[in-house]
């Protein structure tokens, strides 16, 4: 079974500062990778997904970006954080195949002040 690591677990950043959240996956090869954001008490909003190294699809226009430098590494970044970027960020991995569930990492709780 696969394991998903995310760090940091929590982060408090001032408005205008940069951001880098990292996600790594063990136990699978060539997965589809996803970044979601969850606002308090709400569902998951898909931000980015990747089907391979260097391949990134963006779902919502925003000041965030994503990169996949290695097969099992997915990074979420920002050059300048906004207050509205606060939330719970979840990385998910889906093994290749038609009917596979997504597995989630432990998440990063970001507070922008």
């Amino acid at each position, binding site marked *: 079974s696969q394991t998903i690591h995310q760090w940091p677990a929590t982060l408090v950043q001032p408005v205008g500062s940069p951001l880098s959240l990292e996600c790594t996956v063990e136990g699978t090869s060539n997965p*589809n990778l996803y970044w*979601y954001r969850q606002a308090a*008490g*709400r*569902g*998951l*909003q*898909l931000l980015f*997904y990747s*089907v391979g190294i260097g391949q990134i699809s963006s*779902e919502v226009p925003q000041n965030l970006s994503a990169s996949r430098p290695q097969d099992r590494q997915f990074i979420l970044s920002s050059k300048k954080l906004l207050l509205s970027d606060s939330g719970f960020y*979840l990385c998910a991995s*889906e093994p290749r195949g*038609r*009917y*596979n*569930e*997504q*597995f*989630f*990492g*432990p*998440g990063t709780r970001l507070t922008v002040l």
Partner: protein
Amino acid sequence: EDKVVQSPLSLVVHEGDTVTLNCSYEVTNFRSLLWYKQEKKAPTFLFMLTSSGIEKKSGRLSSILDKKELSSILNITATQTGDSAIYLCAGGSEGTYKYIFGTGTRLKVLA
């Protein structure tokens, strides 16, 4: 635009009650539907359902999809306080790698 709607938004029951959570979906080229349980952190996978209509069961939890009604239900029998969580469902479509999540149902089970 694809969407997934869950109801009710929140629910409070007592231990031992049976609950039914609903998820309706409008997903282009529907592939599968996922149910997750989220307590304090990351969602944990419960079930995957497809248009086959096969019911899935795990202990006191069960789920089935009605492809005519474009909906799914999650049943929990003999609820326990440990069932308190947010339950999320998500619909996925063929040809894409995306799942659309609903906003979730917040279940609270009182002792």
